[in-house]
């Protein structure tokens, strides 16, 4: 696979090759995308008919890239008499400055050519290799090329303009130029992505925030967001680097929802640049102590789009929180169910958990009162439509076998839930961590009911139900001979017995009986699950284990951050520290940006974490991971109007201090220090 360069602003992003070019690709999302539509699929620059290659690429900012280029292939003897600088930035639209420098002492003629095209593919058409149903019509104008896509009333346009004169044809722009001795020539190209609404105007133009932002506006907003986050001081450079990278990536992944006009968090580049229920809820939980302002728009949007009817195509039920919202053609024409799609069994309890956690940090009682009805509907879903079989657990089974998801837990690939021998269970399935979330949601819902909704009887009922669920769960999911919790129950109520990372989440939820915490922890940090770089999704001796299998052997940073949170909750600080240390060591190999997942090979085998082949990066909940790990190491826990600080910094990490942590207490500082002095040789 050719190496790729990406820039993004919210859900507008560009993926190109190392030359800065986009060549048509039908199976991978290269190109310029906005709101799930590809607006450019061809963007190839040549100079006198020759491709260029990059001497260096500056991509320090997520929204801007600069390519320093010369003609020819990198293997050629380099004596360039001309060079080219492509500087591009993204902010709803794409801007590219093209600068040609003549290094000769005489005037030279050049032909600069840009091949331009768009297939207006929907992201799902790329994923599934489908053909377009509408028509693309190019229109060449004066220094402007307009690419128009129409299907019924669905109407998208890419409008490419040049500041310098050029010959425009239906497939690109040609510049015939003369540059004086040691002089340069510059043109500014602008690519507008236009989404037409029913009355012939850009749908985003009528929204309160507007879809297009200048680079200055992006920078100011990003800096403002980061300035409001606590300041980290520490000896450990990987931690400092990962913290800054995470804040920047989370700022860059915020996008403006086309349907609500608020800033939401996209899940991951390039496949998941949209709102996901589970991803945005878990990322919000990770980032809450640092970026609490991210939470209200997310939670309000999820409440606004809560399921209200039974709809088999969308796996929708009243009270259910959405899985995925898309804005493209296939969602609009109901060829894909993402308008929104509700195939997620865990986003509903996570919604209640986030609402409670948010109030505990911020004291924002107004939001809790405002969202009483959606929160009650979510809690009611757990015991009604969530409990498909009426056995007291949350189950899932898609009613849309064509385009729905088979697995509706965070491990949502088809083969993620298996018995130890590799067989796949039937449906419906009840995965263990979802029951933990349901337990936690009931307890937190009880607190909200008692404190804010003036309904102590409902609170009592929820607490009673939680206690019964915990007892039932510890009876039905525990495998006494193996001393761990089953991954799931199959439709006959029998345990699905693979050893997997899911039970780490149970510690976070608090559903684990105290007496069983120790064996669970020993499994999580034992050689079958712990690779040295983190806890694998599936134990290395299970039938379906594959160190580069998406959910069957890779290590997911976000998964590990939740597990570390759980270990802390049950008092296993040293073990939580081992996970923090492993993740931060791994982050160095990715320049502070933890990817979606990396391979599950033993640390001794590879010496560095091998990136999963098609991992998304940046990925919101991977960016949230260093933040949650910081919380775990410093032991930050709201208690009434105070913030408890109980640090346990892993050995050799030295000093960790977090200044100006905002919350209902105002601002406080947290200081921690490892027992031994800082020791860089440990890889952190």
């Amino acid at each position, binding site marked *: 696979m050719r190496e790729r360069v990406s820039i993004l602003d919210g859900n507008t992003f560009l993926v190109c090759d190392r030359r800065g070019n986009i060549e048509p690709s039908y199976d991978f999302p290269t190109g310029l995308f906005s709101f799930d539509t590809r607006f450019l699929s061809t963007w190839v620059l040549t100079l006198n008919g020759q491709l260029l290659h990059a001497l260096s690429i500056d991509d320090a900012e997520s929204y801007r890239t600069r390519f320093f280029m010369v003609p020819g292939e990198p293997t050629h003897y380099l004596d360039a008499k001309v060079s080219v600088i492509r500087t591009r930035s993204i902010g709803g639209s794409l801007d590219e400055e093209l600068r040609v420098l003549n290094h000769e002492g005489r005037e030279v003629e050049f032909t600069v050519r840009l091949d331009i095209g768009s297939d207006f593919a929907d992201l799902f058409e790329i994923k599934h290799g489908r053909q377009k149903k509408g028509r693309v019509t190019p229109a060449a104008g004066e220094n402007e090329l307009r690419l128009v896509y129409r299907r*019924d009333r669905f109407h998208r346009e890419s409008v490419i303009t040049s500041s310098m004169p050029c010959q425009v044809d239906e497939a690109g722009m040609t510049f015939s130029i003369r540059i004086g001795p040691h002089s340069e020539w510059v043109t500014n190209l602008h690519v507008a992505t236009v989404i037409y609404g029913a*009355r012939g105007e850009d*749908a985003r133009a009528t929204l309160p925030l507007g879809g297009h932002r200048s680079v200055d506006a992006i920078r100011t907003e990003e800096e403002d967001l980061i300035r409001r986050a606590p300041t980290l001081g520490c000896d450990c450079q990987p931690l400092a680097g990962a913290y800054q990278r995470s804040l920047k990536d989370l700022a860059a992944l915020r996008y403006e929802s086309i349907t609500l006009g608020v800033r939401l968090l996209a899940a991951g580049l390039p496949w998941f640049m949209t709102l996901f229920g589970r991803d945005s809820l878990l990322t919000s939980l990770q980032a809450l102590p640092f970026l609490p302002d991210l939470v209200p728009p997310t939670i309000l949007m999820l409440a606004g789009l809560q399921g*209200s009817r039974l709809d088999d195509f969308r796996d929708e039920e009243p009270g259910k929180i959405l899985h995925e919202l898309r804005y493209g053609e296939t*969602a*609009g*024409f109901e060829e894909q169910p993402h308008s929104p799609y509700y195939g997620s069994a865990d986003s509903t309890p996570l919604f209640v958990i986030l609402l409670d956690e948010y109030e505990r940090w911020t004291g924002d009682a107004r939001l809790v009162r405002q969202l009483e009805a959606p929160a009650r509907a979510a809690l009611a879903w757990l015991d009604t439509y969530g*409990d*498909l079989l*009426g056995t007291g657990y949350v189950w899932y089974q898609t009613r849309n076998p064509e385009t729905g998801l088979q697995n509706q837990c965070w491990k949502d690939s088809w083969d993620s839930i298996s018995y130890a021998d590799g067989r796949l269970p039937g449906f419906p399935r009840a995965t263990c961590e979802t029951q933990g979330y349901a337990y936690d949601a009931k307890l937190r819902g009880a607190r909200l009911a008692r404190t804010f909704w003036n309904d102590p009887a409902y609170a009592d009922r929820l607490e009673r139900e939680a206690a019964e669920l915990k007892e039932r769960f510890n009876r039905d999911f525990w495998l006494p001979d193996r001393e761990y919790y089953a991954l799931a129950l199959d439709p006959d109520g029998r345990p699905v017995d693979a050893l997997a990372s899911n039970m780490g989440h149970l510690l976070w939820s608090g559903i684990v009986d105290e007496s069983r915490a120790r064996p669970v922890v020993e499994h999580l940090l034992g050689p079958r699950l712990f690779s040295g770089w983190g806890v694998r999704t599936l134990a290395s001796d299970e039938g379906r284990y594959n160190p580069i299998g998406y959910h069957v052997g890779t290590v997911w940073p976000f998964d590990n951050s939740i597990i570390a949170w759980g270990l802390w909750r049950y008092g296993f600080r040293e073990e939580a520290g081992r996970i923090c240390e492993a993740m931060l060591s791994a982050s160095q190999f990715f320049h502070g940006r933890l990817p979606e997942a990396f391979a599950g090979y033993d640390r001794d085998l590879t010496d560095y974490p091998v990136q999963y082949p098609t991992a998304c990066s940046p990925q919101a909940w991977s960016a949230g991971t260093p933040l949650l790990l910081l919380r775990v190491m410093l032991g930050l826990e709201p208690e009434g109007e105070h913030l408890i600080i109980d640090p346990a910094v892993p050995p050799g990490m030295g000093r960790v201090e977090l200044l100006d942590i905002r919350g209902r207490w105002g601002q406080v500082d947290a200081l921690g220090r490892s027992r031994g002095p800082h020791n860089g040789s440990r890889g952190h």
Partner: protein
Amino acid sequence: MTEVTEDFFASLPDRAPAVLRSPVSGTIRIDLSTGARTDHWRVELAPGQVRVSRSPEPADAIWYSSVDLFERLVTGRTQGIAAVLRNESTFSGNLTLFLIFRHFFPDPPGTRDPREVAREQAGRSR
């Protein structure tokens, strides 16, 4: 104006207590067009209640739809957000009201309770 649409608006006041549970108030106007003619339905939403009138007066949110599309929506045969995404329908103003109003739309025809279906299947598999 079709009978189904008239019946839909007539049913709203009785259904409001069950559907409108959030502390949100405001007015949404639904402009239904067919050929050159546009009918205006104005719905005042408040917790637990609605008031429906036929009036072109301004509102906090306006939803534009063809008569035909609206009939498909009120019979559960298509879905409102998808209609907006494919540009068959559009809206302006306060989106929260649109999101709340969609709660009045019924299930697609013939939809069964998924619990019944799952329990029947599980019964067979045993």
